[in-house]
């Protein structure tokens, strides 16, 4: 396959698509094939969810986009990634953040020994628009997350999980992004806090026009806030559709939402979603 054919559809829809992955393949350590041809698109100012169980490849997909894979000896070996009309698969995370695509990693990863405010300020590392603008954005983050303002001087390592997640999202917002890759925001948090976090995601999406690609195991919560969803299994996208459609799909209900109608189904009766063909270009 030639790159020309791959870039064509992306260029045609560049105006309303902020991110598109075309059939990417990721190999760790030169031997472990983790993503076996994943394609997805995120519309501008959309919230898209990647769903799936442990080990399905959600995190790897996000890291392939933000190019944090290299730090873990992973590599995109096939396919292309287009962000905002530009091929980005060879860019470093630093260059990608400058172009407005930033990842909030699974497990928050705040700087434990820095205060909350210092954490937020590190998010502005790549910005060149001066201290006044950064100060203004810091205040904006504090109005979005009043809890962070209360704890601005405490060491991030000693704050609660919810506060750390807010700190991580706030830190990402400080880079003035067009798009945030949000990995497992609900991990280890109380349901109430998860709801609060997702509300903030929706608010950022509506008010600031930030696009979100969210990887989640909490299918129920993610499908309530996302507009579109992709379901992954063992390195492939096996199903995708509008959030509403996915919520009402019998198999999704059975396996991801945990609500079954009628008798318990056995695995064998469920149709298999091997749809790799469609994504091969």
């Amino acid at each position: 396959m030639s790159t020309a054919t791959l870039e064509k559809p992306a260029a045609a829809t560049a105006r309303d698509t902020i991110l598109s992955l075309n059939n990417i393949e990721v190999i760790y350590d030169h031997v472990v094939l983790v993503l076996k041809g994943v394609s997805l698109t995120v519309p501008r100012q959309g919230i898209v969810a990647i769903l799936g169980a442990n080990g399905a490849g959600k995190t790897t997909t996000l890291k392939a986009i933000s190019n944090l894979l290299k730090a873990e000896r992973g590599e995109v070996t096939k396919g292309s990634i287009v962000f905002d009309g530009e091929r980005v698969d060879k860019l470093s995370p630093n260059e990608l953040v400058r172009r407005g695509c930033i990842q909030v990693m699974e497990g928050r990863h705040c700087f434990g020994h820095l205060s909350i405010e210092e954490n937020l300020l590190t998010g502005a590392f790549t910005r060149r628009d001066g201290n006044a603008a950064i100060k203004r954005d810091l205040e904006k983050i504090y109005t979005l997350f009043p809890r962070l303002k209360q704890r601005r001087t405490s060491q991030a390592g000693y704050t609660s999980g919810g506060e750390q997640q807010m700190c991580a999202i706030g830190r990402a917002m400080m880079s003035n992004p067009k798009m945030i890759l949000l990995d497992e925001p609900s991990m280890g948090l109380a349901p109430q806090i998860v709801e609060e976090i997702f509300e903030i995601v929706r608010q950022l999406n509506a008010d600031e026009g930030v696009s979100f690609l969210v990887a989640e195991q909490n299918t129920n919560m993610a499908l309530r806030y996302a507009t579109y969803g992709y379901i992954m299994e063992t390195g492939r996208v096996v199903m995708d559709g509008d959030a509403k459609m996915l919520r009402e799909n019998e198999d999704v209900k059975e396996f991801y939402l945990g609500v079954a109608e009628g008798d318990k189904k056995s695995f064998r009766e469920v149709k298999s979603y091997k749809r790799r063909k469609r994504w091969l270009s």
Partner: protein
Amino acid sequence: MSDIATRPAPNLLASPLVKFGLLLAAIVVALAAGIWLDSSNTLYAIFVDPFRQMAQAPDLLVQTIWEGLVSGVLYALIALGFVLIFKASGVFNFAQGIMVVFAALTLVGLYEKGVPAFLAVIITLGVMFALAVAIERVVLRPLVNQPDIILFMATFGITYFLIGFGEALFGGNPKQMIADQLYLPKGAIDLQILGGLVSLQKIDIAAAVIASLMIAALAAFFQYTRIGRALRAVADSHKAALSVGISLNQIWVIVWFTAGIVALITGIMWGARSDVSFALEIVALKALPVLILGGFTSIPGAIVGGLIIGIGEKLGEFYWGPLVGGGIESWLAYFIALGFLLFRPQGLFGDKIIERI
């Protein structure tokens, strides 16, 4: 309340303070008994006599402590270079000692070639910057994500490269530091205190002042600037730093350059007290016990550790050295470090690892 009876009695020994107090009391009692029973006077010579000497000649004590303080400041400076690099890249930089020698040699060598002293300082800074860039490009970047031990071995490589390179350029002979040309003070101040004469070398005073200024400047840089914040962020978590768009390559150059500046200042100060030669590298190894004492990740730790080792070994040499025929200055520091490794491996100020899930 009924549960009081069922509650287990508080275990007094669990408190480290109580344990330490009991231990101390036991030692004192044992010593008192020992000295009373002591026939050959060994215990007296170890535990009583040195303190009697100190009390009898306080001016000598002050002089010894001052000497220790000065060498302590210089140890602290070398340790500071180690800490900077260890924090930002997780690499124990074995080459820090040779970087001190190399910086000093370059400075003196340039001066001998006819470059004015202050211009030579500036050019040397440029050389240290070029060195930082070269190390990042040639050594660190290809080895990124390799185990720490491999990077550690790579710094051995840097060490031997710098030794060879330095000797090829400037020759292996000891050189005189250009202290006068840099307007470093000479001579001594004699103070009349405690019924005796204490003589303070002016160069030592200058070293202490300059070291303190530099440490203060570094602390401010780390605390209040954008780059400083990024440096601390990198030290905290490489991955998270990458994810917010901090470029590790850029940070590493900055850190190695900062360590190079520290090395140059250390080289000037140490060179002015003795001379500039490759033997300085051995002295730089003293930074190891300093780091074990102070903790590998702490700048205040490097300073306090340096002072404790410096003063400790001078006092040990002067008051306890004669008991074993002298010369304990060269190993006492390692001995103290061994004690620390046994009881407090993270050092006095080492990072407590914050763990919560």
